[in-house]
């Protein structure tokens, strides 16, 4: 009982082959698109790698790049095959390769689907990486004299300006770390010493933020210092003021940006997957109809095309048994666990007599 059987006349077969040839070339283009999307994602992640902790998130763009390249190769081959399928003599060249090709393409489309799903699942790992990375970056904001960390101030400032955000979850994160280096603190001043002493770890904490947190849309010149002190500034109310600084946290802003990017890429990959699946189905129909035509012997006859020769269950059973027998070919014997030292009764036809016969004694006397 074949699965989804369709009758194919000669003209329909030829048309199918031509259409599949064009579709395969379009798939090569989509493979290139996948490759470039993976490359773009890789570049975007690398650009902000200073703000992300050491989590393994590069596997997603790497997967997309690999899938894109393989798609190009597979569909290029598919295009050649379909081009030759119009002509029966050329088809014979590809007859043996077609089934393995279809199986490979089937597993490849599974990879494409996995790639698309990975794009959506990356969200949580990315959030973790950003959380840790931003905390680190803000901690080392003041260390502009330490090699290896001297650019973190610039990176964080540009991030806050570009993404219009402040701090990790909000601007209050800056109140909990010392972001002014000791080099610029006058230790002889009483106020500085008081602040340092008021803190357990001896950090200079203040209710101020760097200038990059300032909101451009504020009607008033930016208030950066003594943010929580209403009396320090004229006509200022800390609780109701929301236009002075950027309210969004940088983790949220970056996550939004990357999620948007990943969703677009994931959608494109899903559409590519559907396209590949349809091309695969077409190639399968073409292969089965051409093989049936060959079996019937007449190149101009009508033939059947199907997805599977028997029903799904039967095909699964036959394939499993094939795989099992392939496995058995290399085995010695499962009975004695393959130990060569155990006596195995001989099954050959030659019979040399019973074993426990004592040697013939010479009764002849001389």
């Amino acid at each position: 009982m074949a699965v989804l059987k369709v009758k194919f006349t000669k003209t329909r077969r030829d048309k199918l082959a031509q259409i599949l040839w064009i579709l395969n070339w379009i798939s090569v283009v989509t493979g290139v698109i996948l490759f470039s999307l993976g490359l773009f994602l890789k570049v975007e992640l690398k650009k902000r790698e200073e703000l992300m902790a050491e989590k393994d998130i590069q596997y997603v763009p790497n997967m997309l790049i690999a899938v894109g390249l393989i798609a190009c190769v597979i569909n290029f081959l598919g295009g050649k095959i379909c081009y030759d399928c119009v002509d029966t003599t050329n088809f014979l060249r590809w007859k043996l390769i077609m089934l393995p090709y279809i199986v490979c393409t089937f597993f490849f489309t599974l990879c494409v689907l996995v790639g698309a799903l990975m794009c959506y699942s990356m969200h949580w790992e990315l959030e973790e990486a950003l959380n840790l990375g931003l905390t680190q970056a803000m901690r080392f904001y003041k260390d502009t004299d330490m090699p290896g960390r001297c650019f973190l101030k610039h990176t964080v400032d540009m991030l806050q300006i570009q993404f219009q955000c402040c701090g990790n979850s909000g601007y209050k994160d800056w109140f909990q770390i010392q972001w002014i280096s000791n080099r610029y603190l006058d230790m002889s001043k009483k106020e500085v010493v008081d602040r340092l002493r008021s803190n357990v770890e001896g950090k200079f904490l203040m209710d101020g933020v760097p200038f990059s947190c300032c909101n451009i849309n504020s009607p008033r010149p930016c208030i950066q210092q003594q943010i929580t002190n209403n009396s320090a500034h004229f006509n200022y109310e800390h609780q109701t003021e929301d236009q002075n600084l950027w309210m969004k946290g940088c983790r949220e802003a970056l996550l939004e940006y990357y999620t948007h990017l990943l969703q677009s890429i994931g959608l494109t990959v899903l559409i590519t997957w559907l396209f590949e699946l349809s091309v695969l189905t077409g190639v399968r129909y073409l292969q089965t109809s051409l093989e049936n035509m060959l079996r019937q012997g007449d190149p101009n006859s009508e033939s059947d095309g199907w997805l599977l020769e028997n029903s799904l269950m039967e095909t699964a059973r036959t394939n499993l048994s094939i795989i099992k027998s392939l496995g058995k070919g290399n085995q010695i014997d499962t009975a004695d666990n393959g130990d060569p030292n155990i006596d195995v009764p001989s099954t050959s036809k030659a019979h040399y007599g019973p074993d426990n016969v004592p040697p013939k004694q010479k009764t002849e006397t001389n």
Partner: protein
Amino acid sequence: MALLKMKFSQQRRVRLAQGLWLLSWLAVTCGAFIFCLGVYIKIELLRRDEVMENTEIHVVPNLLMMVGLASIGANWVASRVCQDSLDPSRFPRWNVILLVWFAVATLLCCLLLAVVVLSYALQGRLEESLKVGLRNGIRFYKDTDVPGRCFQKETIDRLQMEFRCCGNNNFKDWFEVQWVSNRYLDFTSQEVKDRIRSNVDGRYLLDGVPFSCCNPVSPRPCLQYQLTDSRAHYNYEYQSEELNLYSRGCRQALTDYYMGLMNSTGPGVLSVILIQVSVILSMRYLQTAVEGAMALEAPEGESEGYILEKGVKETYADIREKVNNLLKFGQVDPASEDAGAEEGEKAAEAMEKAATPPPAS
């Protein structure tokens, strides 16, 4: 003596027509490129419209857009002429149009050259316009509650951060302007009262700059206020500090940006001029060669193509005469009628003189 004469066999004529057809389509794409270039420059100028006082510099992108569109049309006509050129029955109708076409195409080349020259010549005017525009922007920075000026603060802040500049000439421009609005000044405070009184105009001036002047590259958290007072900040030297704020003035930054933009389009425009000139010359050759071929008894034979039928001086004299005749034809000039009558009289006299035998021999 024809100018730059060349012989054209039938095959060469065909090749010339085909080559010119391709070249004219290339010129169409060049025209589209010029148009897009003009649109791009215009958009970039409009984006910073608020800090420019006049729009004189807009003549450059306007010209580019006009020339681009005209060039698309003219070169499309050229391609149609090429298609008809090898058909003797259809070619003659293009004769008058070709005259106009040559004039238009030469005018387009001249306009493109003018654009290149203008983009250099208008630099001074651009700087003037920016100077006045930025001065106003800085003056109205604090007026975020005045309708029509409420976005000046955001514009100037964005400009300073994007172009990494501060003030008009440098950051000291902010010291001369009150950029903190009176709404946020506590008039009961002694410090505020002192500052306002110390100034003739009653403005609140301070040696501080807005946050958008801060340089993110600086190793130290940004110092915005009390900039001239080296003692107000620890380990700070006003004269030698150069990383704290942006050192460039916004006028310089914007002028550099726009000049860079227009200069980088220079080579592109020059190559488009070259392509257009080659289209004009090839069209002239094609026209003369095909006309020559049509005049021959054997249309498949060789003909001559040239740029000008006679030498440059003679052609110029011819054209001048033609223009004079055209002008004379339209005139209802009593002077010329009198002159005509006089001439007629003189002719009659001469004839009489000739007729009458010379006196007294």
